[in-house]
């Protein structure tokens, strides 16, 4: 670290007095000509690595390496206790058969797709609310924050709340259905409804998230373009479609990315609301893998890793898409 120390005083004011002293501010030395130590000579080249080192180290150890370890682990059978047994692709083969037999893996995958598609409803939903709230009336800021509220709460709480909402005996849903003369339904107990029920719960905070993204996006919409549109005779929906939405593309993009990722990562809600049930019909890959690897009846680490790898490969499509568009943007600059 010696290089960091300031040069000793006699060096500092060695100050080669070049040229005429600048008369306007009294004698001026060229500020410092410290001995050009290694650091001084190379600081611009070394500084970034110095700043990056801790971040990269952490990230490598905790994120990047584990991804590869998981790939590796998925080739083994391991219960977390004894020795690992090399299986080759057997875990994947098992997954394949589970898929063919429409077992847990198939259900998880299917549910993941349902999540993916339905979760995207958060985007139009968020846009709708954002449009509704993008006004300037008294107290609107408070309204905006309150609408955003669900996103701030833990999914655990959201899960509990919705579980009560759906409760077949006293849930508000059935009370409401009763009002309009429909029979009680047990959303979380019906294998055909359960996934949709959980997604609805997940859509609640996610819509709030998309809403805030769109609100910030709407803030950035160029008012002159709206005015140009008005002069051009675009109104209402046509204005929205032709002029506003194209400008909201960055917000839509981010909303899309976070929603997809949220859908693929979905774990908390399922774990809280149904534990994957009834009879495993609400599982998704993320939950299934946790169940297989770390739950009370699990500890098939290799198999869990294989599921994670499949999930990762799906996600990789989206990561690649995201990086690609970021790269394009970077190059564009």
């Amino acid at each position, binding site marked *: 670290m010696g290089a960091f120390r300031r040069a000793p005083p006699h060096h500092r004011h060695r100050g080669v007095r070049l040229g005429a002293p600048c008369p306007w501010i009294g004698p001026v030395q060229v500020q410092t000509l410290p001995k050009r130590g290694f650091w001084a000579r190379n600081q611009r080249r070394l500084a970034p690595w110095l700043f990056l080192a801790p971040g990269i180290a952490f990230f490598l150890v905790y994120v990047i390496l584990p991804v590869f370890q998981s790939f590796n682990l998925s080739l083994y059978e391991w*219960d*977390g*206790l*004894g020795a690992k047994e090399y299986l080759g692709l057997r875990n994947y083969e*098992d997954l394949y058969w589970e898929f063919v*037999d429409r*077992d847990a893996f198939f259900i998880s995958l299917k549910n993941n797709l349902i999540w993916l598609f339905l979760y995207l409803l958060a985007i139009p939903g968020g846009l709708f609310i954002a449009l509704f709230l993008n006004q300037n009336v008294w107290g609107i800021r408070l309204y905006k924050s309150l609408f955003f509220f669900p996103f701030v709460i833990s999914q655990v709480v959201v899960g509990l709340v919705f579980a009560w909402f759906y*409760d*077949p*005996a006293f849930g508000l849903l059935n009370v409401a259905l009763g009002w309009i003369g429909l029979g009680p339904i*047990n959303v*979380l*107990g019906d*294998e055909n409804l359960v996934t949709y029920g959980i997604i609805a719960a997940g859509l609640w905070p996610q819509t709030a998230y998309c809403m805030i993204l769109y609100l910030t996006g709407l803030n950035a919409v160029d008012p002159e373009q709206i005015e140009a549109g008005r002069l051009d005779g675009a109104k209402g929906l046509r204005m929205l479609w032709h002029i506003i939405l194209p400008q909201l593309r960055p917000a839509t993009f981010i909303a899309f990315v976070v929603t997809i990722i949220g859908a693929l990562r979905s774990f908390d809600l399922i774990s809280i609301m*149904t*534990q994957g*049930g*009834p*009879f*495993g019909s609400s599982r998704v890959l993320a939950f299934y893998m946790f*169940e297989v690897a*770390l739950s*009370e*009846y*699990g*500890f*098939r680490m290799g198999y869990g890793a294989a599921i994670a790898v499949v999930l990762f490969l799906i996600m990789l499509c989206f990561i690649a898409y995201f990086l690609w568009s970021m790269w394009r943007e970077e190059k564009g600059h």
Partner: protein
Amino acid sequence: ELTGDLKIFLDTSNPAPRATMEKMIADFQEAHPDLNIETTVIDREAYKTQIRNFLTANAPDVANWYAANRMKPFVDAGLFEDVSDLWAEAEIADNLASTKGAMTIDGKQWGVPYTYYQWGVYYRKDIYDDLGLSEPTDWDSFKANCQAIVDSGKACFTIGTKYLWTAGGWFDYLNMRTNGFDFHMALAAGEVSWEDERVKQTFANWRELIDMGAFIDNHQTYSWQEALPFMVQGDAAGYLMGNFAVAPLREAGLTDDQLDFYQFPAINPDVELAEDAPTDTFHIPANATNKEAAREFLRFVVSADVQTEINNGKNLGQLPVNAASMVDDDKFLNEGFKMLSSNSPGGVAQFWDRDAPAEMAKVSMEGFQEFMVKPDNLDRILAKLERARQRIYK
């Protein structure tokens, strides 16, 4: 005289059992003043995963766990000490014979039990009395009772299958009563096909109850505790459960006059009655440092007096494992003890998720739950379980 450190890990995190254990350890300490005992109590659910870590990483000298298949992974991984020597000692060999099987793998014993409890039907005696029913003694009276209850607008049985294992209890009883203990164990060990006619018979019996409307609706959304209020409020007349259900039922206000117990009646008169009686155990980790003190502690735990003390109604409120102990004077304990010691000729099972390997237990209990909701899916469910069996028991 024992010296050194003795590290004990416990999962008895609920207040009552925790106090019981701490008292017992204090007594042990008194007898061995030079021993430095250190007790760690871990949350019961957490313990189930944490044990995998501490057995390898920093092993205590004593740890509690469960019998039968539940301890198999650790035995296989060489993480539990072989304590066959203890079981060779007369005191234990004589008095604990009934549980020896549950502690045995590969012909060796890997720990000692410290408590167990009966399963059976807890029911609302007042409702039975109102309807003029009495405890059933065979399958027909069982069904007839049930029909009467259903006709009165109630469910015969409450159950919450959200966490699956409660359905395992029903399967245990129906299968043991239909096909007998040995067949049940063979099924758990993967030796019988799930598509075997005998298995199907079990499910056919079960289906009779389901079709009758014996069980409460929407049980798949409740945990076992959430199913209790149905019984408390009189919407359901009975609960097939372990003895631990008694405490919350009493807490909820049911008196001993309202609450009663009967043994699950015979279905197939040709098979002997067998019971579920899950056993909780103590083990010495293979990596323990003070195994001598640990063995002494195990001896202490199973000794007749200690067993009497810790299992009494004020403490664990369960059954002592030592034949020489006294069973506390509690209505349910007495009935249970009597049932297990004299009316369970077929044998004593641990419980489905302890007798079957974890993975099979998980898949099958999911199937049971599905069956209870959608009995028509039986063939598909059994086919799936059969596939799982072929994969799991290689």
